[in-house]
């Protein structure tokens, strides 16, 4: 059940240029939050900026009641957020989203993320690993200056592949090609699932690959949002099964943000 609370900022770190990791105290929220959930942050209590900003949950420490999220400074809202100081209280709404990452029934969790889309995948990797799943992680970045969280993902993955588009760090190429290669060699496809979050072209490529090869796949989507609760019906995403001339929609905030790749047209 989502709640609204003022969470105290206890740690703040700029992990790469313009990307901030915030640790906040949110005991109630982490009790019920699941991997894939997000929160909505009201960065100012004035009418400007007006709407809350959706940000994924990166990591949770349930014993200590700590929730962590990571965001890139994009526009005005995230800029204001980045100026908050340790000790400040941040107005957050969450946990949001009924569509979360489901991994219980699989043996192998294949995680693929690109750029700032990798944040919601960490809690998934961590919990899957804790439950004894094999976790293979493939993270793609444009270049070496944008590579982040390598150490964190290493700790929660059995295998970690980092790629850069230009080869300036680690493997050169796209993360999906490394994932594909491992699936081609795999003998346990039915018990594996791909989990993807990242830029749209990457998601489309992953979705296409998974559907064509009958591989289980869950993808986390973004869309412009109003309320985050399923009230305003703003963040629509087309149901794959619905006809073009009479489309039907899910909503990212309520049905998602994580969907079965089969169900949505992106």
């Amino acid at each position: 059940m989502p709640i609204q609370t003022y969470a105290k900022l206890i740690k703040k770190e700029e992990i790469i240029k313009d990307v901030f990791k915030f640790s906040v105290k949110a005991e109630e929220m982490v009790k019920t939050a699941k991997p894939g959930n997000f929160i909505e942050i009201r960065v100012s209590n004035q009418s400007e900026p007006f709407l809350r900003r959706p940000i994924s949950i990166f990591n949770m420490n349930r014993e200590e009641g700590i929730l962590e999220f990571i965001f890139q400074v994009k526009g005005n809202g995230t800029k204001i957020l980045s100026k908050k100081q340790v000790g400040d209280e941040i107005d957050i709404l969450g946990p949001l989203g009924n569509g979360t990452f489901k991994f219980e029934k699989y043996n192998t969790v294949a995680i693929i993320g690109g750029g700032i889309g990798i944040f919601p995948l960490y809690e998934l990797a961590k919990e899957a690993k804790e439950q004894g799943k094999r976790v293979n992680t493939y993270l793609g970045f444009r270049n070496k200056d944008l590579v982040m969280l390598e150490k964190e993902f290493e700790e929660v993955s059995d295998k970690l592949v980092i790629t850069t588009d230009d080869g300036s760090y680690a493997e050169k190429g796209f993360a999906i090609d490394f994932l594909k290669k491992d699936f081609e060699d795999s003998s346990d496809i039915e018990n594996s699932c791909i989990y993807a979050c990242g830029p749209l072209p990457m998601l489309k490529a992953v979705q296409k690959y998974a559907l064509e090869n009958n591989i289980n796949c869950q993808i986390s989507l973004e869309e412009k949002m109003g309320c985050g609760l399923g009230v305003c019906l703003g963040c629509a995403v087309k149901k794959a099964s619905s006809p073009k001339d009479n489309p039907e929609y899910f909503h990212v905030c309520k049905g998602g943000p994580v969907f079965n790749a089969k169900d949505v047209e992106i």
Partner: protein
Amino acid sequence: MNTKINFAGIEMKNPVTVASGTFGYGREYSNFFDLGKLGAVITKGTSLKPKSGNKPPRVCETASGMLNSIGLQNPGVEYFAQNDLPFLRKFNTKVIVNACGSTIDEYVELCKILNTLDIDGVELNLSCPNVKAGCMAFGSSYDGVKTVTKEVRKVLDKPLIVKLTPNVSDIASIAKGAEDGGADAVSLINTLLAMKIDIYKRKPVLANNTGGLSGPAIKPVAVRMVYQVSQAVKIPIMGLGGIMTGEDAIEFMLAGAKAVSIGAGNFADPYVSLKVIEGIEEYMKKCNVDNIEDIVGKVEMN
């Protein structure tokens, strides 16, 4: 201190309602507070048949507000009656259904059904800017508003509120159309037709190109229109547009609104409607107002 009002025959414990399309059918916000604290809940615009709405993106932010082009996505009146109404009825609040259609026949058929349901009133949406037919098309002329209102009135015994669009040049005459058609009240304003352009893509942000502007940005326009309408009609007015605080609500009431409604503000703060109720009570204390009805229309023009 008395915050009770009788709005067009609907007895409300306070003048604060939540606006159509910004509160769903109450379920989501009932996780945050008891809906029984509200004067009334106005439902999402509901049509005879289910509607799936417009292509995304459907919302975007603008200065002190937002645009939406949802396109009246809703599950239809039958689903509402079976699933949402019984839920809303668990709370000690009034239920007003926002009704929309694309032809006069559709409005009439819908209101025939609504007349049989356990609801407290109907808000006729003649003002949605995001659908091609109906709605704003009827709402943009005195004759259009009067005709639809009159036809609906014939089949509806429950309190009838007509919701007006601000996208007209003479809001007072439109309100008069509702009154002459037999409406018990009017509500205003719906969203202002607007557009936002992504300057890098050189395309409108919304897939529908245009959308409706709401939020604090529109409040001064709404207050002016409520005042103008209050000078033109005798039926009560529900005022809305950008209300976030008790002070905002009082401003509308002084301009002539007997009740108020809170829309997009719910998205910023799920508790905003309760804060508005508290804010109204604080104002009453501070300014020695015993009866909230006493301040309705009490603005003194310069």
